[in-house]
């Protein structure tokens, strides 16, 4: 494992210390291995026990150091190298269920209405670069990662594999004086006996109390009382910005209807993630493919700019799914 302190501006020294320890232990392990290899076969059993003990100690230390490094990386901002182990611990599990995706169409029209899309191997390449932008812990505890897949941003004439693009990001809170903000979200929906259900989203018994604006388009209000915003700039190797990713992590409230009709309309506290993708060049955001939030990796449908994830505290852990995820046609602040 290579050590990378890039982006850990405020804890560079701590990260460097950990990296130094890491490289020391790796070199100790390499030395040990070469010692064992160089020992003649007939004598190797004599050093084997000692080697095992030392090796075990080294591995323990390596685990500890790796854990410290990961903690550091997950707490602070980092642009990572290809193949970072953190991702392997959380492989993408696609949760969007979009009926206009031909791979999902069959399942959708079959009426299963499952929220968990089948694993699609061809759509889950191991993302090679991660950008981690944690929410300020004092405000809201959660980790959010935008995962983009390395690719065609590089100049084909020159690429050493590390400079295809890089990221720059900022996290900030919105002052209470600008809050609350009531957002209106418009999305494609269809009518059921009990209420409107988003077309591009997950099914849940409780749905936003939506108003139909025109046939097939609904509008729902979400009142945001606290927000942490993130802006991530993806840049090419010449420092040209290709894409802005904005993520608003909000504490909010919204009105819901019970599609089973057993409970009356009710207000509920919710946590929302509002994602805007702004391509500066044509297709600049195409490589932003996944967003990772608290253990679930969501796939963002290509060619769309606004996404909304809504969950009630506890739901995600109880049901391992968000309350709603939807593709938003338009979002604006209520007058």
């Amino acid at each position, binding site marked *: 494992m290579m050590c990378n302190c890039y*982006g850990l*501006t405020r804890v560079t020294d701590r990260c460097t210390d950990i990296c130094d320890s890491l490289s020391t232990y790796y070199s100790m392990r390499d030395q040990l291995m070469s010692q064992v290899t160089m020992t003649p076969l007939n004598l190797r059993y004599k050093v084997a026990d000692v080697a095992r003990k030392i090796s075990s100690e080294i591995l323990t230390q390596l685990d500890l150091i790796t854990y410290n490094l990961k903690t550091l990386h997950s707490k602070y901002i980092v642009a990572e190298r290809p193949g970072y182990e953190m991702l392997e611990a959380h492989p993408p599990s696609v949760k969007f269920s979009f009926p206009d995706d031909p791979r999902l169409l069959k399942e959708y029209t079959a009426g299963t209405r499952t929220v968990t899309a089948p694993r699609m191997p061809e759509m889950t390449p191991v993302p090679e670069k991660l950008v981690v932008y944690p929410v300020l812990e004092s405000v809201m505890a959660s980790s959010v990662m935008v995962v983009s897949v390395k690719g065609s941003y590089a100049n084909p004439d020159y690429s050493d594999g590390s400079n295809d693009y890089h990221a720059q*990001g900022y996290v*900030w*809170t919105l002052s209470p004086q600008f809050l609350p903000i009531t957002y209106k979200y418009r999305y494609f929906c269809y009518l059921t006996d009990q209420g409107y259900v988003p077309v591009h989203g997950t099914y849940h018994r409780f749905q936003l109390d939506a108003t139909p604006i025109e046939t097939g388009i609904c509008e729902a209000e979400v009142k945001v009382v606290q927000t942490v915003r993130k*802006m991530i700039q993806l840049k090419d190797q010449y420092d040209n910005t290709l894409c*802005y990713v904005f993520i608003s992590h909000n504490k909010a409230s919204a009105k819901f209807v019970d599609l089973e009709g057993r409970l009356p309309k009710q207000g509920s506290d919710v946590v929302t993630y509002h994602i805007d993708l702004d391509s500066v060049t044509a297709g600049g955001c195409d490589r932003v493919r996944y967003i990772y939030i608290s253990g679930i990796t969501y796939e963002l449908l290509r060619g769309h700019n606004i996404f909304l994830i809504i969950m009630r505290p506890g739901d995600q852990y109880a049901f391992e799914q968000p309350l709603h995820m939807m593709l938003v*046609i338009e979002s604006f602040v209520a007058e």
Partner: protein
Amino acid sequence: MSGRVDVEKLKSKYYGLKSAVLRKSRHVSGRLREKGFEGGAILVPGEDDDLISELNDIYSLSVERIRIKKELEKAGVGDV
């Protein structure tokens, strides 16, 4: 004819916003570099209010740009 004019107006607004977003974000990056931050930063209310205000502006401009892009797409202009 008026439809054409509207599209041109929208395009002009779209590019104006794009330029404003890029200009402002370059400015923010420069300011952060001056403060010793490279790659990114968690901004602290009270300490970084000026930068937070600029970032909020960038966010608003971007949201408006996304909205106009959608209008342009509706009008059949998809290559902005």
